[in-house]
């Protein structure tokens, strides 16, 4: 048992250290050069009116925090979906849930822009949640009875395509000055996040995370399959509904604030399981959150740095690092089967 405890402690330590390093790097990296020592001085002083302080406090800090929170949320959403479908390749992006949320948010945004209204982030999250749930229901209808990994993923990807096409259509016809903004968002980005957004997402994500930790016990039982879970006293229907609501809420929150971000939901839980060598949800849920934070902060950093001053969409970077992990998962499964 003790090696297990050591591994768990070491795993968390590594993730926390990485998160801290990336957080600092993220504050000091960018078009306006701010050295590490200067950044520390600014942080100690608190908010002042100097340009560097404003860059750190008003632009980089909220952006980094949102990458941290949303990345964590996305990874946990992925883990919950994988638990629901008992399928390691399930995730909000491949199941089309992110795209559904994106479609709903885009429609609401376009409608609001035409009215010249500014939208409260709560409304965007609600729209994203509705879109996510609708897509989830569609996936369940198509693949609910199917236990095969391939069919589930194919129906999810198809639904994702339909939603993306509809979003593109809506964006094309929304002839507006804000279209550029919308277009950026629909490709996935953490930029342009303000402090109120950070506060709102923190509240939602904290609530959903508390919920996820509370159902970690039935998730563990459900890993053995529905029959065993029921025989141990899990009430399957409320549990499954809880899983869907929580994962949709987390995925919706990410989409509402940052647009669709791909592959984090699959890659991070898998990497974390490999690092901790366990499937225990009580460890994996917080670890996936940290892992998602690290992954997204890192990818956001790369998105900003690689072709600076040109910024990549964060989804491009997460795909480059996330998609190979998905392939690795599939190979592992094939090997496990034979």
């Amino acid at each position: 048992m003790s090696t297990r405890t050591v591994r768990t402690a070491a795993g968390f330590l590594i993730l926390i250290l990485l998160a801290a390093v990336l957080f600092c790097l993220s504050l000091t990296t960018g078009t306006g050069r701010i050295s590490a020592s200067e950044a520390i001085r600014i942080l100690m002083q608190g908010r002042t009116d100097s340009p560097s302080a404003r860059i750190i406090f008003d632009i980089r800090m909220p952006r980094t925090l949102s990458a941290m929170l949303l990345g964590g949320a996305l990874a946990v959403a992925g883990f919950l979906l994988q638990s629901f479908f008992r399928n390691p390749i399930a995730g909000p992006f491949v199941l089309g849930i992110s795209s559904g949320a994106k479609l709903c948010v885009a429609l609401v945004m376009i409608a609001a822009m035409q009215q010249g209204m500014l939208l409260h982030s709560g409304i965007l999250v609600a729209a994203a949640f509705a879109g996510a749930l609708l897509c989830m229901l569609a996936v369940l209808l198509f693949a609910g009875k199917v236990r095969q990994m391939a069919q589930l993923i194919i129906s999810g990807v198809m639904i994702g395509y339909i939603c993306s096409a509809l979003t593109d259509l809506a964006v094309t016809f929304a002839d507006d000055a804000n279209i550029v903004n919308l277009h950026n968002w629909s490709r996935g980005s953490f930029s342009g996040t303000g402090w109120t957004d950070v506060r709102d997402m923190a509240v939602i994500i904290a609530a959903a995370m508390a919920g996820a930790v509370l159902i970690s016990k039935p998730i563990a039982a459900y890993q053995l399959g529905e029959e065993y879970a029921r025989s141990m006293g899990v009430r399957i229907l409320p549990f499954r509904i809880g899983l869907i609501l929580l994962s949709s809420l987390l995925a919706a929150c990410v989409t509402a604030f940052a647009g669709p971000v791909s592959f984090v939901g699959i890659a991070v839980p898998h990497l974390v399981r490999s690092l901790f060598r366990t499937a225990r949800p009580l460890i994996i849920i917080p670890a996936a959150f940290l892992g998602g934070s690290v992954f997204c902060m890192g990818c956001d950093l790369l998105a900003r740095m690689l072709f600076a001053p040109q910024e990549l969409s964060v989804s491009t970077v997460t795909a480059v690092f996330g998609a190979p992990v998905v392939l690795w998962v599939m190979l592992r499964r094939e090997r496990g089967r034979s």
Partner: protein
Amino acid sequence: MDRPPLLETKDLAAGYRKKVIADGICFTVRAGEILTLIGPNGAGKSTILKTVAAQLESISGEVALCGKPLDSLHEKDIAKQLSILFTARITAERLTCFDAAAAGRYPYTGMLGLLSEKDRAIVTEALEMTGAAELAEQEFREISDGQRQSVMLARAIAQEPRVLLLDEPTSYLDISRKLELLTLLRRLAKERGIAVVMSLHELDLAQKFSDQVLCISSGRAQRIGTPEEIFRGDYISELYGIRSGRYDPLYGTAEPAPPAGDPQVFVIGGGGTAIPVCRRLFRAGIPFAAGVIHENDLDYPVLAALSTKLITAPPFEPIPEDAFAAARNCMTQCRSVICTVQTFGTLNRQNEALRTLAEAAGTLRTEI
């Protein structure tokens, strides 16, 4: 028999979505007893087990767990009294065997499912009982089917049930593991007073390890009783609708039907010596007759099944004249005779006479 009944069904009908698959199921299992469900594939054994395990709603009839109607019990209470070992496939990534077995503590742990020292001790003990202790830290997906079965049995034991339900628990196991598993079930029944209900395909093992056997065929409970009551005569062949061959309930062996056609070889056997020759004749597809075999002879059950015609003698008696005459008559119609017996005593003296006759006729062979 004053031990408390732990699991009882009365006129239970089980099935999916109002479609009855098994009907009229009545049994009572007491503490320390093993009840085994046998019957052909698709007879409804799994459906019955699932219904009794509260996995499926019963269509009609009653199920009582520890004296209370199953549908009146809360999920948690059922979980503390009944655990299962079913055939579900588990695919969770990175699930360790210890964690899989520890899941059995679910009904006893708190909100977050943290294991106490006592819980850990119970899980470890269960893993030791099933011989899976050294697998604890291995990944569940990466061990063999037989090892998985041990881990999942440990899980079921760690749940500390009063009733244990197992659906074909021996299916993927080799013979030594089959025996180990069933011996462990007997031990659990005796030491912990657990009532065990399981389905088995291995009839010989069902016969040896069960207190009661429930026979299911085409969705009906055909018979229930002790193994001695069930494994007798041709009942098992009837239950399974065996058409090509027969099941010998005494030895627990299945024998195929004899090759078609008139007997071409006559085998003089006795004392178990004829069995290898008769098996070779069967494999070669040659119909044969045999005699004169005492009804209590070792050769009897195999030859009775494989031979086209068998001439027998009553137990403990010298071979009577009419049997000798019938054998001589049959022998002359066969193109060759094989005698597998070397020694002749007072009871099989007439078989020596048969051999002498065959030798004189020039039909005696040593091999087929």
